[in-house]
């Protein structure tokens, strides 16, 4: 553990909660809110990307047009991806979150 970073005081930060850059939501990890986690069953996946389209948190990782797993730092475990997965044998299954799991991977 390093020295804790001292956070800036009220005089040192922009007013109104503004962040003077865009696209910063990626830096904020919300995976810790999850009580169920989607698990990718690779052998059942047809790479239709319905999960990617449906995910409200952009937490489905796609490389070269193919499903590549989940970004567990930003997946809140809503289960929409599993619901939308069209294959007969589901390629996404929701499993109870294990408290022992490392969320921030």
């Amino acid at each position: 553990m390093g020295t804790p970073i001292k956070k800036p005081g009220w005089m040192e930060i922009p007013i109104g909660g503004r962040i003077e850059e865009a696209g910063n939501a990626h830096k904020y990890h919300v995976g810790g809110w999850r009580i169920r986690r989607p698990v990718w069953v690779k052998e059942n996946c047809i790479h239709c990307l319905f999960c990617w389209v449906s995910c409200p948190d952009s937490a489905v990782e796609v490389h070269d047009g193919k499903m590549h797993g989940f970004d567990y730092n930003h997946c809140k475990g809503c289960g929409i991806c599993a619901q939308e997965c069209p294959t007969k044998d589901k390629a996404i299954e929701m499993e109870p979150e294990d408290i022992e799991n490392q969320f921030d991977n």
Partner: protein
Amino acid sequence: MGNRIALTGNEAVALAMKQIAPDVVAAYPITPQTEIVQIFSQFVADGDVDTEFVTVESEHSAMSAAVGASAAGARSMTATSSNGLELMFEIVNIASSLRLPIVMPIVNRTISGPINIHCDHSDVMAIRDSGWILLFGENAQNAYDNLLMANRIAEHQDVMLPVAVNLDGFIISHAVENIDIVANEDVRDFVGDYYPEKYLLDEEHPLTMGPVDLQDFLFEHKRQQIETLKIVPQIVQEISDEFAELTGRQYEFFEKYKLDDAEIAIVAIGSTAGTTKAAIDNLRERGLKVGLLSIRLYRPFPADAIVKALSHVKAIGVMDRSESYSNTGGPLFSDIRAAMYDAGETAKIINIIYGLGGRDITVKDLENVIGRVKEVQDSNQIAEKVIYYGVRE
């Protein structure tokens, strides 16, 4: 060159909005504010003003659209009354917290229920603690003038907070008065254009507004609001002084009327101040040393200046046109008593709750009220801390 014309309060407000020509107005009609929206939308339809007028389906949406437009970088306004203000309450707080300089006339009307369309201050008092700057006036001239100053105050780079300009429903909004109008070009020069330092549509400088703000930062942002509100009175005065140079009409945090040599004082907000002046004139003729302090800047509360102005009086009657349901009197009463306590002042202070739901208060009524305060002065005792004036037993 300005001129003097007869207008209702609502017409004067709509005219001021036309002269200010905000980029965006998003509003929903509600009695007694309706005319403001109606008249202003006619100005837009006739091409008299190039404002983007957004017709919305509720006041919640009106304030939301004003917030969105302001965040984008536009000078934006809305207007409302009563339950409309309560419906926008959530976004009212967001506007101030996000430091958006929205300007909103509020035509004061009681909040339901039972349903009633007439004047009291229960609507605006419900946003008393929302971080908005709240201005009041006793007549249409004050409403017009306050509105012309509101954008300057709100958009001042050291302020960046929304401003509400209050006028009493029907009493001011629908009564016709002769008003001194500022010439269009003078308004344009005085109000000026709006160039926000940071805004969402500035593609050169990407900005995030309204992100999640948790335990580690929200308190700091609240402290920023608090510290800003401490310097707001000084900025209000600077802009008011500049307005006086333009128009000859000098505004302060409050108006003192025959107060300097008074032994007893009435403190009031809104149109009742005018009625009180007439009562004071009558009683002064009978030798009673009574004066008035009429609040213009209510939030932030200019406590030190008020204490100084009241420090010599022996008894004070604070007129509240709303209740706080605390069993300790109305909101203005609490503010005045707290301010006087801090200063160690020992004047006897009573509260007069009056005029709820638009119940009329006349010059004779005010003479009676002043009589009650005189009794407190003479006996040096408070028999009744909160008087509900004009209610049937």
